[in-house]
C-alpha cells in the first residue's frame, strides 16, 4: 500500500493488499462460516480499477444468514426430565412451561425442534446444549 498515485505497480499493490487483508479476515471468520464482503478500494488515478465486491466462494450467504437451520434435541433415555427442562430454560431463556413442552416432545416423540436459526446461531445453540451433554444437532430445512 506504499505505492503513490500514478505508480505502475499501484494496481497490483492494491490487489495484493486487498487479497491479503481479505484472506486474513475471512480466515478469522472461518469458524463462523459467514460470507464476508470486502470492497476493493476506489482510486481516481487508475480508473480501470473499478470498485467491486469480493465474495467468498466457499460460503453461501443466502443460506448461512437465513434461519434455515433447525436446532433439534433428540431423546436420550438417560437424561432426567427435570434436567432437560432446566437446560432449555438456561440456554434459551424460556419460562419453565415452554421448556417443559419441548422436554415432553423430546420424551414422547423422540425429538423436538427447539428453534430455527442462521447457521452461526444454530451452531452456538447446539454447542450450548452439548455442553450439558444433551443429544442436540442442527439440520438444514
Amino acid at each position, binding site marked *: 500500500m506504499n505505492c503513490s498515485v500514478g505508480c505502475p505497480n499501484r494496481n497490483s499493490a492494491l490487489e495484493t493488499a486487498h487479497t491479503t487483508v481479505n484472506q486474513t479476515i475471512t480466515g478469522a471468520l472461518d469458524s463462523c*462460516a459467514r460470507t464476508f464482503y470486502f470492497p476493493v478500494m476506489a482510486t481516481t488515478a487508475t480508473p480501470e480499477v473499478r470498485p467491486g465486491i469480493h465474495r467468498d466462494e466457499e*460460503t453461501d450467504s443466502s443460506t448461512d444468514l437465513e434461519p434455515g437451520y433447525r436446532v433439534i434435541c433428540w431423546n436420550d*433415555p*438417560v437424561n*432426567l426430565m427435570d434436567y432437560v427442562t*432446566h437446560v432449555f430454560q438456561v440456554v434459551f431463556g424460556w419460562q419453565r412451561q415452554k421448556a417443559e413442552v419441548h422436554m415432553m416432545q423430546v420424551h414422547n416423540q423422540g425429538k423436538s425442534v427447539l428453534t430455527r436459526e442462521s447457521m452461526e446461531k444454530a*451452531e452456538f445453540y447446539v454447542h450450548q446444549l452439548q455442553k*450439558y451433554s444433551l443429544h442436540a444437532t442442527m439440520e438444514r430445512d
Partner: protein
Amino acid sequence: MKLIRTKRDKLVFAISLPEKRLLFEVLKLYPLISATHHRLSKTARSAKHDENQRLLEESLAAQREENRKNVRAMLDEPGRFQAAASGFQLTLSGPEIEWLLQVLNDIRVGSWIALGSPDPEQGKKTTFNEKTVPHFRMMELAGTFQMVFLDALSGR
C-alpha cells in the same frame, strides 16, 4: 444432602460425611464422555461441515478442561466443606451449580454409554454383572446429586 438455606446469591447444603465421600467418588470420574462423541449434524456431509465439527470438538474439549479444573479446585479447597454438627455445609453459587450439573450429567451419560446405552422402553435392558454394576452405580449416584441441585435451583 439437602438445601438448608440461601445466603445472598449462594446456596448452602447440608451434606453428611458418607454423602461427601460419594460426591467426591463421582466427581473424580469426570470427564467420561469424549469430545468426539457429539455430532454437529446427523445429515450434513461437506468439507465445511467437517471443519465446523472439528471446531465444535475443540470447543467442547476446552470446556471440559475448564470444568475439570473447577472440579479439582473444588475438591482441593479446604474451606469448601465447612464442618457442622451432623456433617458438613457445602456452599455453592448459581454458576458453580451450573457447571456441577454439566459435570454430573457428563458422568451420568458417560456411565450409561459404558453400560451399552440401555433403553428399557425399546427393550434394551441393563445387564447386571461385575463389569456393569459400577457404571450403573455411578449413573444413579450422579442422577441423585443432579436432582438435589435441580430441586434447590427451582426452590422445591
